[in-house]
């Protein structure tokens, strides 16, 4: 019974990991670079949503919640583009190390910025910046099993977002362009696809999704902290490896899977063990099937 409850929570909450991983994998698939600032983007967007909720009394209003959610998504996109402009655009080509470092530095800057903001701005509190929402205390009891309303909402929102993304990637021209660049950037360029524009679109979309995820996660926790992003980033690494980089569908399923493992382990044993378990899984998968379980025909890219 206990395990079932944990499994359900994990499944629902795992949808957020799916969202974060999807954003991450989109950027990696197109740019072949890791965006370490992805987590920070998510955090900034979450703060944006929280601010809206705090300022306009989101505690009891679903409408404000929706507004906050949309704002978070847009803020996510904007921050993502800024990150791209500062950390990736000036570094065309060159070693793999540089964009890793610049995006990590961006993440650091954003984190510190918000640590400062939470100290100086009065609506934020240093430790507990709230994200008030009517979903806070919504719970359902299925017999003995306890399910949080917030998690249900997360799950369905995530499904909707992934559905939209899937439709866009496979049924629109821009989506097609993105898939082309992902598969073979040189050929895509030769075919007249503007790689730069594709990059911008991907960054915007991926970061918008991150923003949405950030908002959902903060609503579930009830609070936002400047370190929200970095905690999530590591878990999304695990999802990414399991799924195989480049596979959106894989990211979705593996996100749920990781969510379940995480909650069940944390619930039955301890929070620390769950971290160890996840990383051991990551390591094993890398040894056994490095392309990931859902690998697309990934040509080796460097």
């Amino acid at each position, binding site marked *: 019974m206990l395990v079932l409850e944990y499994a359900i929570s994990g499944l629902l909450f795992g949808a957020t990991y799916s969202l974060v991983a999807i954003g991450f994998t989109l950027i990696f698939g197109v740019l072949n670079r890791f965006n370490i600032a992805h987590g920070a983007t998510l955090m900034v967007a979450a703060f944006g949503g929280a601010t809206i909720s705090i300022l306009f009394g989101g505690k009891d209003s679903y409408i404000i919640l929706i507004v906050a959610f949309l704002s978070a998504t847009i803020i996510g996109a904007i921050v993502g583009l800024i990150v791209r402009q500062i950390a990736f655009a000036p570094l065309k080509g060159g070693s793999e190390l540089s964009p890793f470092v610049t995006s990590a530095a961006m993440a650091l800057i954003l984190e510190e910025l918000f640590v400062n903001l939470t100290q100086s701005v009065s609506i934020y509190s240093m430790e*507990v910046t709230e994200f008030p929402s009517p979903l806070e205390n919504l719970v359902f009891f299925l017999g003995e099993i306890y399910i949080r309303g917030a998690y249900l909402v997360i799950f369905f929102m995530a499904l909707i977002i992934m559905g939209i993304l899937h439709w866009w990637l496979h049924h629109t021209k821009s989506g097609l362009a993105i898939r082309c660049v992902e598969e073979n950037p040189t050929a895509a360029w030769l075919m007249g696809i503007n790689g730069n524009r594709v990059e911008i679109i991907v960054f915007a979309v991926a970061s918008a999704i991150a923003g949405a995820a950030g908002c959902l996660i903060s609503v579930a926790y009830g609070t936002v902290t400047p370190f929200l992003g970095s905690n999530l980033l590591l878990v999304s690494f695990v999802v990414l490896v399991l799924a195989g980089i480049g596979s959106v569908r894989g990211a979705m399923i593996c996100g749920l899977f990781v969510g379940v493992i995480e909650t069940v382990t944390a619930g039955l044993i301890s929070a620390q063990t769950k971290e160890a378990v996840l990383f051991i899984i990551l390591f094993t998968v890398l040894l056994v099937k490095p392309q990931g379980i859902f690998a697309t025909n990934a040509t080796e890219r460097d």
Partner: protein
Amino acid sequence: MKSMFNNCINLARSKMLGLTVATGVALLSTSSVMAFQDEGTIRIGMLETITGGAAPYGLAGARGTLLAIEEVNATGGIEINGKKSKIVVVGGGELGSDGGLDPALAIAGLKKLVLDDHVLMVKGPTTSTNSEAIFNYLNELSNQGSGLVVHSSSAGAPGLGEISKWGFRNSFAESYALSFLVENMVKHTGAKTAAIYHLTDNPYFPVMAELMTKELAKLGVEVKAVATGLSKDAEFSRQVKEIKSVNPDIVYLATDNLRGIGFMKEAFRRRLQPSVFIGGISQLVPDTINSGGEATAGMVMISSYDDKGVGINAYRAKFKARWDEDINLFSVNGYEAGQLLVKALQNSGIENTKESLASDRAKLRDAYETVKIDSISGYSVEFNDVHDTPKSGVILTIKDNAFQAWEAN
């Protein structure tokens, strides 16, 4: 060995030379402008934790002390040898240097204040962890002839005062007041069982959990479940479930601010409803009420002062005017620390010159041993023989969105 040693230095030098010269110049120009003990200012240092997880406590304490200092400066300062000298916080910003959370860095910060900035005493640190490291280090400093008073207003772990004769605390040490709190709660609820949730990565909380277990045992109450967690947890289902499953009459929380709130919210959602939730001083911050909302209503904890007291209200107005924030236990203790410091300075008979630094530091320490003030909390406060300031405490509860005096009715 020596030539290898020299080679090592030369090698390092040749690599570092250019860079070091450049940065060395930059560093020298940004370090303390006041080269030595001026006559006309009394130099003290502050080493509270003003960034990171313990920042709410450190900032509140630093601000409270600074307020007291500013008040005495407004009257001209402390009279020394017939001349008035103002107290100045040196090293760092307005609130002094950042003690941080890492004891090694705190010791480095202390070294700088003591040896480079030549301060008379240091206010801080904020956390018990830092205080333990620093009080231990004080003994070494003392052997080198550089002993000075280090005065914390928030480190609460038991036994800190016994480490060094230079360390002083006016924190509200919960351990002194715990039996008072527990007796009242057990009597009021007729409790027979209890459960505890505490963090394991900060020495203070496991100690409090142990103390609580002992106090409860004295009254025949059995602790049936102990759930643990870390300072970075964001999820509390496991702990709430564990505790709920033993259906306790009393639930005691030995956690920091954020974890306490998170736990209470989860408990609210899962309908964990003991006769009473008992918290600690870490819960005595506005966040607990603002964020906790209905989840934390009715929670009980012990504080050092009665919120309705006259002195407290006057202080509240002053603090709000200066810092635009409400007061809490930490800012009250910080102000009290400032009061103690000022009085001790007045009684110390220091010379306050460059040459008398060592003897001034010793004189201040002696003054600290015997100083006594009327705190804004309404009590008379002085240090006992282990350099603590025992206070019996006031039981508070969260009612109508505020911390109010608890009444048994």
